């Protein structure tokens, strides 16, 4: 896993050196996906959204106290996706904040919360868009959370320190979100000469590279809030099977 990540970083840095571009990197803009792709990504997102709503209902019915924690996960994504941070590529982008909720409530719950954030930004900020909502939700609210959730569970199996699992889950979830965005754009706009691969490299240089330092920031911030939760909301985390390995020792001892 780590080896893969290293390779990925090497590839990305190479792209950066080959094609330095000062660019911003965020969601796909309104109207910038051909209609058939808008429908395709929308249709792909919909089932995840429905499963997510069910999963949230289940959790909340089981224990109404979890509502507060769910709201916290939503608020975290809300704050982080509003912060446009400068990056080493000379442009700005923002973290997504969906990793935390994915670790706590599972990936599809964040499909719901992430889509709400995207809808808010599309309607009030002209950031992203209604016609690209499906595609943006797929990258930020499905791929991101699933990657974060998967990595967290995987690393937990290998008894990795909790802070490391949380950090890698959140950062890689963030990074993969924007790699997905690049793939989506490259699929919709393959280069007439170089095809899909050429477009993908181009879009990656715009979207994915800027994201690397932000992914690290997001990882660190997620560890910070997770530290807090293990101190104050230990029982809720146990109930959600987030801390199934531990008996009593919160993150503070091992982090």
């Amino acid at each position, binding site marked *: 896993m780590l080896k893969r990540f290293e390779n990925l970083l090497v590839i990305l840095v190479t792209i950066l050196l080959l094609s330095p571009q*000062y660019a911003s990197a965020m969601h796909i803009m309104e109207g910038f996906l051909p209609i058939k792709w808008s429908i395709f990504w929308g249709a792909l997102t919909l089932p995840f959204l429905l499963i997510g709503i069910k999963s949230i209902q289940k959790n909340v019915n089981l224990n109404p106290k979890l509502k507060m924690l769910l709201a916290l996960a939503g*608020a*975290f994504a809300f704050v982080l996706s509003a912060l446009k941070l400068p990056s080493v590529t000379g442009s700005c982008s923002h973290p997504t904040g969906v990793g935390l909720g994915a670790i706590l409530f599972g990936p599809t719950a964040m499909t719901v919360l992430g889509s709400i954030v995207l809808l808010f930004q*599309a309607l009030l900020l002209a950031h992203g868009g209604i016609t690209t909502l499906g595609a943006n939700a797929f990258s930020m609210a499905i791929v991101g959370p699933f990657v974060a959730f998967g990595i967290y569970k995987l690393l937990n199996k290998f008894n990795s320190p909790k802070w490391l699992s949380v950090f890698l889950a959140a950062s890689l979830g963030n990074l993969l979100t924007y790699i997905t965005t690049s793939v989506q754009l490259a699929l919709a706009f393959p280069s*007439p000469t170089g095809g899909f691969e050429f477009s993908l490299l181009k879009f990656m240089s715009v979207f994915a590279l800027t994201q690397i330092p932000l992914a690290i920031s997001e990882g660190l911030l997620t560890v910070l809030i997770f*530290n807090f939760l293990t101190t104050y909301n230990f029982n809720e985390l146990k109930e959600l099977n987030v801390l199934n390995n531990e008996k009593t020792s919160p*993150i503070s001892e091992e982090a």
Partner: protein
Amino acid sequence: MNKTKNIILAILVILITAIPLFIVQNGEFTGADGKAEELITTISSNYKPWFKPLWEPPSGEVESLLFTLQAAIGASFIGYFIGLAHGRKK
């Protein structure tokens, strides 16, 4: 100790955010999604966006107001949550 660790984490995030501002020469740090847009027009020059945003903030100031509002709403709740948990523990 958790508190010390969290302070260190916060400082790291601030550093990662601030350093690009100093090391990247002539970076524009634009927030517009223009470059990807440009790229699309280079790759397929005849593509026309087929949908416009229903509403756009009339100026950069209004846009930053709404972004700030978004962050403030989220941060208020996080602050409330932390305060509540902290108080309960005492």
